[in-house]
């Protein structure tokens, strides 16, 4: 039976494979980059599936468990971006970010017991959270692009980078819309109403509108691309509030049905 104690072995193997993939991408060896990154993803996914089996429920309840999915989706989003646009550095970034989340999980493991309260026992549970985690990973990649353009990239032709950033936001927003509306359909089945302005829902609406502002602003013929990138950075900060920030927000203490960790 795979337990949380074995996570470190799976994590080290995955990170090593991803690191080799990132190195191979720098060295223009795409075949090797694909193989090792995918192998790393398979090893990591094997752990997620084993946890799913040993917990007898989807590992999606605690913040630690959602971080597990996030660490998985970052290299996945990285390899998809790499396959489409051949960015040498994207795999290094996704590996480092995945490593950060893995370290958080190793240093602050949260209790992973079998209990799953009846409200979470629904066919909507897995798609709702997984789709959101994928959206967060893709929007994280878009934020990395924005930071790269804002702070690192020397002046010059940037149209390709902007196109990638836009594409990442479109994909991320599409998945965020799925996550939000799956949540609404689930809420109707579980709590009798599809939208109750629960703090998590309020922040989900904020985040959703923030990315809509980016998309519409980018379509404005006379826009300032620099400001557009800042909108992306701010949107990602708002997303953090929605994801975990509200757990620490005085205004949502005891007011949210979305706090399940304890």
């Amino acid at each position, binding site marked *: 039976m795979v337990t949380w104690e074995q996570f470190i072995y799976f994590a080290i193997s995955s990170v090593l494979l991803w690191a080799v993939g990132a190195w191979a991408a720098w060295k223009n060896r795409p075949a090797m980059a694909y193989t090792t990154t995918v192998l790393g993803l398979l090893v990591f996914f094997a752990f997620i599936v084993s946890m799913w089996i040993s917990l007898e429920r989807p590992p999606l309840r605690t913040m630690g468990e959602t971080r597990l999915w996030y660490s998985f989706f970052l290299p996945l989003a990285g390899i998809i971006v790499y396959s489409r646009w051949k960015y040498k550095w994207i795999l290094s970034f996704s590996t480092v970010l995945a490593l950060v989340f893995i370290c958080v999980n190793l240093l602050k493991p949260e209790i992973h*017991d*079998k*209990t*799953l*309260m*009846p*409200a979470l*026992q*629904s066919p909507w549970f897995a798609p709702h959270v997984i789709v959101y985690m994928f959206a967060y990973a893709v929007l994280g990649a878009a934020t990395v692009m924005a930071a790269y353009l804002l702070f690192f990239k020397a002046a010059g032709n940037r149209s390709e980078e902007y*196109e990638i950033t*836009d*594409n990442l*936001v*479109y*994909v991320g*927003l*599409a*998945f965020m*819309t*799925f996550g939000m*509306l799956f949540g*609404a*359909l689930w809420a*109707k*089945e*579980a*709590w*009798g*109403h*599809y*939208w109750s*302005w629960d*703090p998590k829902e*309020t*922040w989900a*609406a*904020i985040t959703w*509108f*923030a990315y*809509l*502002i980016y*998309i*519409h*602003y980018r*379509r*404005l*013929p006379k826009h300032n691309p620099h400001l557009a990138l800042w909108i992306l950075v701010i949107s990602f900060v*708002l997303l953090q*509030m929605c994801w975990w920030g*509200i757990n620490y*927000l*005085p*205004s*949502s203490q005891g*007011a949210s049905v979305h706090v399940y960790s304890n």
Partner: protein
Amino acid sequence: MKEGFLIGGGLIIAGLALELGVGPVVWEAFAWPVNGIVLAGFLAIITVMFLLRKKVYAFRFIGTYEAAIPAMVYAVVLTIIMGLIRQEVDGTWLNNMLTFWPFVLIYVYIAVILGQIILRRIVNCQFSFFNLKRNIPFMLNHLGLFLAMTTATLGNADMQRVKMITTVGEPEWRAIEPGGLIKEMPLTIELKKFIMETYDDGSPKRFASEIQIQTKSGKNIETIVDVNKPCEVDGWKIYQYGYDTQMGAQSQISILELVSDPWLPFVYSGIYMMLAGAVCMFVFGGRRGDNK
């Protein structure tokens, strides 16, 4: 863009004046048929604004990005305030954003903008039939949001949510409204058996009610209502809500919630359109050769 921010600012000031003058928005006043009339009036106003767009500059302006972006910025800022300040049912001003005029007016303004751009696209569609790949996703996203937003908001007053405390072996037809009033239901529910399963640590794994429902329309249904698995009879959805937590598995009562929401099909059509729109967004992404 400056004009857009000015309009939004004007709406906020108008909202503050209304809040001071007439008090918070009383959503209960929108119960049928008021909400139907308001919706018809709203659609008529949107259409008139659209028809007069060539004569009146402001109506033309409302259908542009320069109007939409500031409106969304105001919505985000007000919603952030809502997210930072504790919301209370009996609260006023910032403690109850849903009844706070500036918040409501900004969202109404967004609905007006959505209405304008939808009508504009429909009319333009006649001249660009072949551009379906862009027009269909546009319609799904914008019309879907318009439909979901307006019908959810206006339909809210018609939603009924009541609690029914059922006891084993006793048919119950009375339910408790949110305000504490007793409501006689068009159906009776008899609790046959309360089902409870727990984990090793005693936390609930499953609680459900085996019930028999008899309706005034003559239906006689035996079913089990689980958390996450409501059942539906004559427009009422019946949910497992609670039980006697002191008694736990021995509970002889089960609290059910009964919800009726006649506007749900409209809201759901909006939600399904937005889901289909999100599929398009994923497939077609930001590819847009037209305005680069």
